[in-house]
């Protein structure tokens, strides 16, 4: 609990600044920022001076952007008196101060002699002056095992202990309950097996640069889905198989994915039903639907300004969003996943599981826990099927049939997903066609902005989808 004027922060911050800008999980790339403070939580290891290395603690880097936005990033640090070649990929920088002497800082999550403190903390339900480790009683036996940091993630860092558990360390942290932990805790306690069970978590407390006390969730421990693979990878396997067979239809090839899609639809339906049971629900009538239409329209306006290619479709899209205002309602709303796509699904030997209930990471916390229609998630999954298929057609050597096959694959798997969802929940999302279409087009508009900023070569994916939907909105959902 130290503030910006603490000596350590002043000496360390240039190191943190350089380190942050090179991390995948840092959200402020390309924006100018200042490190306002570095808050150092108590040592998780013995403090320096005891002669044991590394010494390990969590440091929270509070940054401010030019426009006044504030963000806090978590950097667990392991300090050594000498350089560690084996940790070169996790090197943060060099410090010299009274407490540490001359020391070399490494990202502790990549150092298995440091990561043990998180697992041990949860096992022992450790409490330090500014951090608390909690354990959820699930019957799982937890034993200390060496960790391995996973490499695939965008916004957090996860590591696996042995084969039993996965620690997800949140990089961008915020005051209040993390929705990922909140939802996993509720679903785990209710016995839902469509998510990876929550085993424990860690939270910390500090006073930020503005003098406000912040209590934030910093990490969560889940049961590790040992032999699972990511739904996006699995879907691409199917698409790849189809593309190799120019003359066979999507329902004829060996790699047909419809069975998986249907089961994924059922899994999504089951999780939605659980969320509706365990958390608050509400109903939206005209005022809220109007507000939703306003949000969608506003996003459209912003995006058209930035992505001129979207302009020809704007009037029709506006019409789709306006239709939301006139819906008969009331529309049931509840807690949802918020950022569902194939990459947030895992296929295990015991069926599908959904992961990452953090909501859309770009949104502030309040927006991520707000109630919404489950159609938001369903529309996002429908978009994801389109992405999986179309991503294989952007390659320059895709054959002429590829575009046709991609649309066929998308239609087949979207339908199967919706069938699975409808069969489990008893509610067919296609009965709320206008709202589903609006959510889907809103998502495609969002994607257009994202792609034009980050992957211009993929911009044709959302644009192509918008064009097809507008040409034949019924066929795309009914396919």
């Amino acid at each position: 609990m130290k503030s910006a004027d603490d000596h350590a922060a002043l000496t360390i911050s240039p190191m943190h600044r350089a380190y942050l800008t090179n991390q995948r999980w840092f959200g402020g790339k390309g924006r100018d920022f200042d490190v306002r403070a570095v808050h150092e939580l108590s040592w998780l290891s013995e403090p320096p001076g005891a002669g044991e290395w590394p010494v390990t603690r969590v440091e929270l880097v509070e940054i401010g952007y030019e426009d006044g936005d504030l963000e806090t990033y978590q950097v667990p640090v392991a300090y050594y008196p000498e350089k560690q070649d084996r940790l070169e990929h996790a090197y943060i920088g060099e410090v010299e101060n009274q407490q540490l002497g001359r020391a070399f800082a490494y990202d502790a999550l990549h150092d298995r002699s440091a990561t043990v403190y998180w697992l041990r903390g949860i096992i022992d339900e450790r409490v330090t002056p500014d951090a608390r480790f909690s354990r959820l009683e699930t019957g799982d036996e937890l034993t200390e095992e060496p960790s391995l940091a996973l490499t695939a993630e965008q916004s957090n860092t996860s590591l696996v202990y042995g084969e039993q558990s996965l620690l997800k360390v949140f990089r961008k942290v915020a005051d209040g309950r993390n929705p990922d932990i909140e939802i996993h805790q509720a679903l785990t306690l209710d016995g839902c097996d469509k998510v990876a069970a929550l085993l424990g978590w860690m939270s910390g407390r500090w006073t930020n640069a503005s003098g406000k006390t912040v209590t934030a969730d910093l990490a969560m421990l889940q049961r590790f889905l040992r032999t699972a693979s990511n739904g996006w990878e699995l879907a691409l396997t199917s698409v790849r198989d189809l593309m190799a067979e120019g003359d066979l239809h999507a329902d004829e090839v060996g790699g047909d994915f419809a069975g998986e899609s249907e089961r994924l639809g059922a899994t999504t339906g089951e999780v939605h039903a659980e969320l509706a049971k365990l958390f608050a629900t509400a109903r939206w009538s005209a005022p809220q639907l109007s507000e939703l239409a306003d949000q969608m329209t506003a996003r459209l306006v912003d995006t058209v300004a930035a992505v001129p290619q979207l302009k020809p479709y704007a009037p029709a899209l506006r019409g789709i969003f306006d239709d939301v205002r006139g819906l008969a309602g009331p529309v049931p709303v509840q807690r949802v996943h918020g950022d569902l796509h194939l990459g947030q699904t895992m296929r295990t030997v015991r069926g599908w599981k959904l992961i990452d209930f953090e909501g859309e990471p770009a949104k502030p916390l309040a927006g991520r826990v707000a109630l919404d229609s489950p159609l938001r998630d369903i529309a996002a999954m429908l978009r994801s099927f389109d992405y999986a298929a179309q991503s294989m057609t952007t390659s320059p050597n895709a054959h002429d049939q590829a575009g046709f096959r991609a649309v066929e694959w998308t239609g087949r798997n979207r339908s199967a997903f919706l069938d699975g969802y409808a069969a489990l929940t008893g509610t067919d999302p296609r009965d709320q066609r206008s709202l589903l279409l609006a959510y889907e087009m809103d998502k495609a508009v969002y994607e257009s902005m994202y792609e034009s900023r980050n992957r211009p070569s993929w911009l044709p994916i959302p644009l192509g989808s918008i064009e097809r939907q507008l040409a034949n909105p019924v066929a795309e959902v009914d396919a």
Partner: protein
Amino acid sequence: MHPTEPGLTEHDPEWFKRAVFYEVLVRSFKDSNGDGVGDLAGLTEKLDYIAWLGVDCVWLPPFYTSPLRDGGYDISDYTDIPSDVGSVEDFKAFLDGAHHRGLRVIVDFVLNHTSDQHPWFQASRSDPDGPYGDFYVWSDTDDRWSKARIIFVDTESSNWTWDPVRGQYFWHRFYSHQPDLNFDNPAVHQAMFDALAFWLDLGIDGFRLDAVPYLYERDGTDGENLPETHEFLRKLRRYVDDNYPDRILLAEANQWPSDVVDYFGDFESGGDECHMCFHFPVMPRIFMAVRRESRYPVSEILDETPPIPSKCQWGIFLRNHDELTLEMVTDEDRDYMWGEYAKDPRMKANIGIRRRLAPLLDNDLNQMELFTALLLSLPGSPVLYYGDEIGMGDNIWLGDRDGVRTPMQWTPDRNAGFSTANPGRLHLPATMDPVFGYQAVNVEAELENTSSLLQWTRRMVHVRKDHPAFGLGTFSDLGGSNPSILSYAREFGDDTVLCVNNLSRFPQPVELDLRKWEGAEPIEMLGGVRFPRIGELPYLLTLGSHGFYWFRIPRTTED
């Protein structure tokens, strides 16, 4: 009797757990006397080939006296051999020759039913009050036990058939010419024990017990897996253990593994019913996994397979003399398999597909090798089907299941070197099509070609022999980053084997979490090449289309 045989090790109660089995149809393997039918003397002539291949045990489907309306599973005399196949003396000579070469022999035995030509049945029909009157299951009506499913749905409409001689219906779970024996009659038990003892006394190493789930019938049940059936198997096992140690019982129970596991018997004591059972669902799942390019069909079924008693073993196979069984898949999967592998309606039979491995895989050598590598490395003792080691084809135009029972192709000469008979006299015609015919596919040619499927299969079988982990080891699915890659470790004591299989027709990378063996350098088992040391980070491998690796993981202290 065994310990004195030259080729076999002394007392070895677990031999079947490490063994590779080789299924041979006597009538289709080698004809020694030119009558067009393969025989025991011909089989004896070919023992050197079988031993060379490296298998450990020969499994012979029934060669008993039979009207042959169901491939010999319709037995009309349990203790005699028809003259076209040979004699009991010929069988003894074969058995001794096999044992001399270190090969064991198991034979099929049908407990559930006999042929309607069996003298017991004839006596039961004509003399209901005689000694055989109660040997079969008779009824005045045909409506009892209606919950029992009809197995051969293609040919049978009921499990009851009217017998005009006795004036009653008789019960049959299979064909109407195969009446079920009445296991409620103790005299039937004794008759079965006597028949089994006849072969055990000759020195055979075990039985494959055909159709075991159906021995009893009880009201209100489907007549499968009844407690009485298990009681009989325990009695049979005690009889074999007490009198004939090291002999095995291998059950054919085409059920889900969770039901089949009951046929091993008591878990605590290591098993008190059958030593081995076939694991049926793993086979169609391998086919599905490769077509879907996804490991999940296989990973799932192995995950759902319960542990088995310590002295027991699964038997696994890719193909055998029956059709590719699709009873143990879901309806959705079955439709899919039919669509994928039985494009011509004649390729379907009952609830399966009647094809050999090579034509099922479009004669793709990479896939045949991948499938064989899976067969030889997944948990259980593998059963090779004669001819699949050279990539033989099938003849879907032959009736029933005969299409996969055509003569073994030894040479490019007349009748594939199987027989000197006039080709028209062969019991089944040798395959002559341009791709799979004996002029293209035969043992002689493949012996001369060191890169042939035959030579490759032999090398794999021998590599397997060197590693007890394959037969005795634990199995753990390693998952990995790529859903098209099926990878697993087999471990037994110090022996650790790592198998990585690319189920996709495209080259694939995979990252595996091998930290458990950090510091070790995996050694590829076919070539002995050392791979990079396993470090702290995920282990990256790349595999060619339908490629696979077998690695041995040396202990880190080993140089």
